[in-house]
């Protein structure tokens, strides 16, 4: 007696289509990702209940690390203008090459007198150097001069002044940054934080709920 024949189908699934989808999504996420610019130093920002996203255009960011040193970075749109303005104001002798180096640096973390040497340091070596930071004392307030240069250079644009400080930054260091801004008649700041949930049952929570239903 012959046994009933069971047709054995192959279990091999054609993966080509799935592979296509996977890589399509991968490409999308790679392109959509905005990579972090070179960070001066590691800064852990505190959390806040604010849910506004940080502006990425025309941003002038002052960072304060946990050792209370002050660093500066700017987005590329305003960087060149700020440099020109500063050179003019301080009567510095610079070459076009200097400007090229300046445009390539991710952040500034030294006083003016070391600036030209500083911008020539390759970015991978910066981690090993103990940077002094930008002085912002009442006698030598270079931060204030940077802000003034940025304000003059960015005339007509709406500059976003961001302040990024570490959890463990002491308040007086943050106060110095605020004072430097106040000297230049700038009173609106954006403090960079990471998101945190609003505790339920509080007035802000209910406001947010109402805003959502509208």
């Amino acid at each position: 007696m012959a046994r009933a024949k069971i047709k054995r189908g192959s279990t091999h699934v054609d993966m080509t289509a799935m592979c296509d989808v996977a890589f399509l999504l991968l490409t999308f996420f790679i392109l959509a990702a905005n990579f972090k610019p070179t960070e001066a130093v590691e800064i852990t920002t505190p959390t806040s209940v604010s849910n506004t996203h940080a502006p990425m255009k025309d941003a002038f960011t002052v960072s304060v690390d946990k050792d209370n040193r002050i660093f500066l970075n700017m987005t590329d749109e305003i960087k060149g203008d700020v440099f020109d303005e500063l050179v003019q104001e301080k009567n510095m002798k610079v070459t076009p090459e200097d400007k090229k180096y300046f445009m390539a640096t991710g952040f500034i973390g030294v006083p003016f007198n070391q600036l030209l040497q500083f911008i020539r340091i390759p970015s991978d070596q910066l981690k090993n150097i103990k940077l002094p930071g930008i002085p912002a004392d009442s006698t030598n307030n270079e931060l204030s001069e940077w802000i003034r240069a940025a304000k003059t250079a960015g005339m007509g644009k709406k500059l976003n002044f961001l302040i990024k400080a570490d959890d463990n930054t002491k308040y007086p260091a943050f106060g110095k940054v605020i004072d430097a801004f106040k000297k230049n008649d700038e009173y609106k700041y954006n403090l960079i934080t990471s998101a945190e949930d609003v505790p339920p049952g509080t007035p802000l929570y209910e406001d947010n709920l109402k805003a959502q239903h509208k």
Partner: protein
Amino acid sequence: MAQIEESNRRKSKKNYYSKTLRVDLTPMVDLGFLLITFFMFTTVLSQPTIAKLYLPKDINVKTPIKKSAVLTLMLTRNDSIAWYEGNKIKNEPLAYCNYNNLRSVIQQKQAKVAKVLGNRSETVIIIYPGKESTYENFINIMDEISINDITHYFVMNSKQ
């Protein structure tokens, strides 16, 4: 019979393979999805938020406020807050709280203000960030202010 069939099948299979080249794409798909997962997580996490801070000009203008509506918070070292209501009475010991029970302190004050002045939003908070307080402390206070919908607050310079 079976043997012959087997050999026949193998032969045909061999021919089949020599004609079309079939690559197993499973590992490639695995890799693709692994990378997708990675990029998904990193894109979401790298979005920082901002807390807006608007400060007034430093001018010598005296703002009249009701003493009974005032709650003064002094940020001190080791994440603790010293607080008092209204005017500071000499030799009266300060009350201390930390950032976890600060909300109840503020809410109690708001309830008191609502009872005396009729409106909760009359509450005024004065903040003295001390020399030893950290930026995180300050952000926490600003958070509590927005969480509890405080509309009047002052940040004092820490020149004590």
